[in-house]
């Protein structure tokens, strides 16, 4: 099930998604790291962030909303406290970074250049829970500039995570690909809201949040399909993956690997289980490698 992306090999195409598996410490107790394709860390910013107050999550039909608001220790504490353990973990470490400006992203990328234990970078250009997260991330010009500048600042394999809150996700993917991204991660969450009909209050402290889970799988699959046909770099599929069959569908649509997010909340061993199911599926189809499935969609 090994896959190779941007010259890095991953034990399986099933990875954890940013913000849904902490920084490794917790997930290590449930998943054998050697069986994890990669650990994608929670977005880290330059400065520590408190995130939004409680309530931060709500269950919706087939999905959930969150407005965590990027609570994280900041890059320095991350490097001191988290990276050493991540380095010891026998899986790939994909460090997801988030900024408020292009300069932030560049600085974060530079800082991670100098340290050990970082296998790849993932730029979160798509957080719906911070001011301007979507405004910037849905502007192909801004994405071009941001990826271009980060690319100049680092030699690390660079994944760019883009937003589905757009009329044209393909342009965003192209903007990233044309400026040196090594892969596109798609998708982040959709903007959504829930209201308490008794109190008339929004169910999230930040009023709106990001929708994830099986509910958005069709949106993610369409995005991956379109992006995979439009760019030459690999696509990493994300959105509502709960089973090995779901993962297979993303590979068929054109993803070279997938990330598992919300499924981890329900089941801390989800990535391992999904990988096992995918392996079984590949066997049943007589396919030797996961890559044999990639982009096989029959249209």
């Amino acid at each position, binding site marked *: 099930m090994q896959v190779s992306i941007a010259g890095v090999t991953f034990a399986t195409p099933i990875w954890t998604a940013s913000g849904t598996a902490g920084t490794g410490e917790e997930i290590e107790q449930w998943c054998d790291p050697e069986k994890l394709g990669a650990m994608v860390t929670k977005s880290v910013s330059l400065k520590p962030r408190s995130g939004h107050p409680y309530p931060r999550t709500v269950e919706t039909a087939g999905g959930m909303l969150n407005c965590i608001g990027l609570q994280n220790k900041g890059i320095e*504490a991350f490097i001191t406290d988290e990276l050493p353990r991540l380095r010891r973990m026998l899986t790939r470490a994909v460090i997801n970074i988030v900024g408020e400006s292009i300069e932030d992203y560049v600085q974060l990328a530079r800082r991670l250049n100098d340290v050990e234990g970082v296998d790849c970078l993932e730029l979160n250009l798509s957080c719906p829970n911070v001011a301007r997260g979507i405004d910037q991330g849905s502007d192909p010009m801004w994405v071009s500039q941001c990826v271009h500048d980060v690319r100049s600042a680092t030699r690390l394999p660079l994944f760019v995570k883009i937003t589905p809150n757009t009329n044209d996700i393909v342009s965003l993917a192209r903007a990233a690909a044309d400026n040196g991204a090594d892969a596109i991660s798609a998708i982040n969450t959709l903007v959504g809201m829930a209201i308490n009909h008794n109190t008339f209050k929004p169910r999230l402290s930040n009023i709106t949040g990001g929708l994830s889970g099986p509910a958005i799988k069709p949106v993610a699959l369409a995005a991956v399909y379109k992006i995979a046909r439009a760019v030459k770099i690999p696509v990493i599929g994300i959105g509502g993956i709960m089973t090995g069959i779901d993962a297979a569908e993303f590979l068929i649509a054109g993803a070279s690997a997938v990330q598992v997010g919300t499924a981890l909340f329900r089941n801390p061993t989800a990535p391992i289980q999904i990988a096992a199911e995918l392996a079984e599926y590949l066997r049943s189809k007589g396919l030797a490698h996961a890559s044999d499935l990639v982009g096989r969609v029959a249209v």
Partner: protein
Amino acid sequence: MNHPRPAALLWTRQVARDVFHQRFAEPYIARHARAGQFVHLLPGTRHLFRRALSVYATDAKAGTFDVLHQVLGEGTRCLSQLKKGQTVDALGPLGNQFLVPDPGRRAILVGGGLGMAPLRLFALELNQKLTKRSSRRTALERTPILLLGTRTSSLAIAPFELGGIGIRASWASDDGSRGFHGTVVALLADQIADGRIVPEQSVVYGCGPEPMMAGLASLCAQHHLPCWVSLERSMPCGYGVCMGCVIRTQNGTGYETFKRVCRDGPVFDSAQIVF
């Protein structure tokens, strides 16, 4: 490596309107769960999130654990309708635990409604531990004091099997229909005022609705009485990865502003919490 475990329902007993006491067979949780910890149960395939329930009782030998829960929504309803022999997918035990008082201090357990569940298990743990070292302890330290609050007599649920070890609850009820007339926090204040509870020789352990915990925290702060509270949050993951179940902390800045109830708690020093 831990993993989700199927827990088979042994029996369900309805102990009040909408309140159910259930026993499950699951040896690992039975052996490892400590008072204050919780199990995270998947009530059925329809739900994305699990439901957190305090461990109410354990029997390591028999390999069983109990929960006590009130039917609020779909999740708890599904649970209550489980048939004997059916299994639920369980994570646990999760979270931290109630720690025994420092020497010279007596445990005052203050529960509201279903909040009594983890306190009951703690009372048993305390009894066991203190019995072992009883030679070095006074009787006063030995027996925890249990104060329970209820809205009204007919809704009161007494913790099962505590009578046998000599722990009896003092009750408070909002309408005076059972025991003290007032909240259980007022009862505690009352017992401090009349000297039955001596702050310097006590530690409070509280579990119940958040406003009650807030009241308890502020009363205890007033009397410089150490106070641990068990808190509740909606818990998408229950094991610390989602950052959804947070509580605001005193003096916390940046990343430390919010702590996770599922992993940093559910038991917190009440002085650390902003209610």
